[in-house]
């Protein structure tokens, strides 16, 4: 589902990723771990075409996305659910509208959108909170709204960048269990996290990055 081939990414001369070769199979779940600044976020951002590599190729679902025209990138992103560390919700509208954003972008009908939003909120345990403003929710709930938004479009791939970064261990485990659940339903899932203790318990593949290089779990 995802292949990185000799990917190099530099920021102002600093190497963020050096010659990364990585393959994530269809329906697989993997954690990317490493110190902060090891390149975890950059790796995820390359897969969603938020960044472009300086060298190498990134294949998503068989297509080399480094060659995508600018106008094609939105279509790629609609197949990918992205969960951000700071959840990036819009506080000027209720939970429902936040979760419905990808459906509005994709052009789903209103009735269909309503059903899917409620289904997504149900999966993350927030059914009944649609009308609330996300600002009135706890950090854990806000992160779960972000997850509902990422899965509402039934993406092929779910990417999560430090989704538990701001949460206590209890909430973190709940969130990680949610990802495992989506993965069991067939979604290829890639989670960047530095929470080694938690990752160890979950028993999925762990890819370790160290200063922009793969230090383990590549195969």
């Amino acid at each position, binding site marked *: 589902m995802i292949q990185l081939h000799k990917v190099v990414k530099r920021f102002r001369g600093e190497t963020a990723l050096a010659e990364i070769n990585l393959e994530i199979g269809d329906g697989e779940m993997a954690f990317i771990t490493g110190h902060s600044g090891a390149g975890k976020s950059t790796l995820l951002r390359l897969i969603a075409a938020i960044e472009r590599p300086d060298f190498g190729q990134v294949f998503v679902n068989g297509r080399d996305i480094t060659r995508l025209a600018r106008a094609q990138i*939105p279509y790629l992103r609609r197949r*990918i659910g992205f969960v951000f560390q700071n959840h990036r919700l819009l506080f000027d509208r209720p939970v429902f509208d936040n979760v419905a954003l990808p459906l509005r972008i994709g052009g789903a*009908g209103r009735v269909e959108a309503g059903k899917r939003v409620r289904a997504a909120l149900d999966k993350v345990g927030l059914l009944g909170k649609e009308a609330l403003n996300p600002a009135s929710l706890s950090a854990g709930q806000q992160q779960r709204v972000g997850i509902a938004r990422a899965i509402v479009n039934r993406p092929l791939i779910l990417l999560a960048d430090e989704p538990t970064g701001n949460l206590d261990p209890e909430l973190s485990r709940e969130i990680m269990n949610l990802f495992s659940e989506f993965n069991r339903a067939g979604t290829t899932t890639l989670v960047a996290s530095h929470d080694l203790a938690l990752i160890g318990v979950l028993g999925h593949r762990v890819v370790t990055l160290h200063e922009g290089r793969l230090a383990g779990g590549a195969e």
Partner: protein
Amino acid sequence: MFATLRLYLDSHQMALAGTLARLAKAPLASALTLSLIAVALALPAIALSVLHNTGALLPDHSSPARISVYLKPQTAAAEVRRLGEEIAATEGVAQVAVISAEESLRAFREQRDIGDMLALFESNPLPAVVEVTPDAQHDRAPGLNLLSARLHNLNGVDRAETNIAWLQRLDAIIALARTAVHLLAALFAAVVLLVIAAIIRSETESRRDEMEILALLGAGDAFIKRPFFYTALCYGLGGGLLAGLTTALATAIIDDHLRQLLSLYGSDFARDGMFWPRIVLYTTGAGAALCVAGAWLSLRKEKL
């Protein structure tokens, strides 16, 4: 096919509804912007409308031009006849009618008041007149003025006067005013364009986060920029409508004065100015076009 169109229209409807909600949320700021657009559109619109109506209020320019050539007083009858022939032979003259001093006197005597006054004179004070109809090449300025001057310089001619001299002066003034007003209109159009471009620019700055999130969720350029175009369109339509109504009202008031002014020149001008819904249509159209262009100007470089 229909389903796709329906979804497309749905997304536009949502963008428009979102824009209106956003404008309603900050009523003071929206009202200020609307007023600004309205004033900037109304000023040139009033000027253009008055200019247009001045043209419409003027008497028909197609009334035939005439030159009255007054001969020197006490010119002998034979000399009058000779001058009449000379004038008829002058280049640019189509037709002449010679009115002798006696004929003039007779015509004046028929008007009671002036007739009594004429009795005070020992001899006939009126000159002989040659009424000249110019040919097609000389019935408009500058040909008309040229012909008038040519006739004025003939020996034995006292002076030559065109019947539409004041109209020509007015024409010249209007031509000057037209240039000035068009320049003014262009400047104010630029003002509207730049104001909207600046407003949309600050709006995109304050909604940068939202635009980025939409892009990350897979929204295309058109989807992300659509609300801003709708904002500009709302400002343009609203401001244009206000400007149109203001212009219609102002024009109605000014037209009354204009009518009085022009009636001093001895004509009654019955034709009406522009019908007010048409004014509103024009300003609204101009407002919408300028504001959308302003938004485009501001969003053109936006890359997400």
